[in-house]
């Protein structure tokens, strides 16, 4: 079975309200792509000995541990964060260009030539059981935070 790619853009294509899950998907994708851009620039310069986190911190008046947190994940980034990091790491700014989502060609390569590629599924073939799990609620966020720090 395959993921129904064409269904995914249907609301965007037809000007209908965009479901929350898709809004969430694009927010995360946007954040991820910015993060990858900044992080890959930093790693490239770090590997050649051009730059360290401490140097980035010095350039933008932050503590090194703040830079470590920012380069670890983009969860708390603001537009100001992106601008500061790009300046300090890449000595650059973003070059903006819209990439239309509609009219994109379907990919004709699915990652490995040996993989079985069944017919494209439609929305009617989706699985119907709910995901069936709930997170523990009592203090779960705090608990996770504490556990993650230790881990």
């Amino acid at each position: 079975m395959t993921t129904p790619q064409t269904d995914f853009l249907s609301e965007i294509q037809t000007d209908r309200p965009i479901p929350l899950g898709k809004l969430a998907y694009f927010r995360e994708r946007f954040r991820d792509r910015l993060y990858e851009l900044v992080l890959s620039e930093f790693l490239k310069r770090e590997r050649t000995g051009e730059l360290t986190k401490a140097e980035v911190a010095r350039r933008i008046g932050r503590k090194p541990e703040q830079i470590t947190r920012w380069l670890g994940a983009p969860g708390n980034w603001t537009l100001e964060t992106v601008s500061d990091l790009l300046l300090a790491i890449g000595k650059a700014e973003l070059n903006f260009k819209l990439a239309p989502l509609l009219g994109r060609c379907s990919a004709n390569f699915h990652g490995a030539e040996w993989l079985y590629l069944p017919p494209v599924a439609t929305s009617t073939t989706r699985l119907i059981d709910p995901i069936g799990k709930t997170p523990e609620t009592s203090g779960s966020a705090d608990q996770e935070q504490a556990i993650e720090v230790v881990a």
Partner: protein
Amino acid sequence: MIYMSMRDQINQCLAEGRLFQVFPMLPGSRVSRVLLASPEIYRLVTGPWSDESEEIRCGRLWADFDRFVEGRLISVALDNPYHKPRTTYLARMDPGGDEVWEIRSRDPRPAMRIFGRFAEKDVFVALNWDYRANLGGPGSEPFKIEMRRCKAKWRQCVPTYPAFSGATVDDYSSNGFPV
């Protein structure tokens, strides 16, 4: 007796609907790494969901999956299961010899953990999952239970082959950086 390679067995699972390939959501996006998912994982991203918060959470999870599938930069913890950075994307669990890995989808809360094994370089088979809050501390019994479930599900899909094993991050994944 018919000889079946690991690839044959995986393809049989795909043909029978016991595994699904997760593609990037956007048409035309590159597929640089292969993510195969059990029905349990696949339904996280295809829905239906019980409420709006679950739909939003799973939308973000799908974006996390796309990071892997599209071959974007990922952080990988190979040998430090209890001292990895909180923000690690992909981590091998303890004991490393079991070759059970987790994709760590941390944001937004509730965080999720997707357990699976590598079939070969850049081919990850995601088999089971749980919310992080249900799993207790590092090395806890719930984690061990999920590891056992993961290995059992692997044996159902690929009964005669062990999971892929490597020595470096690059052995498992392209465009991964060790943490």
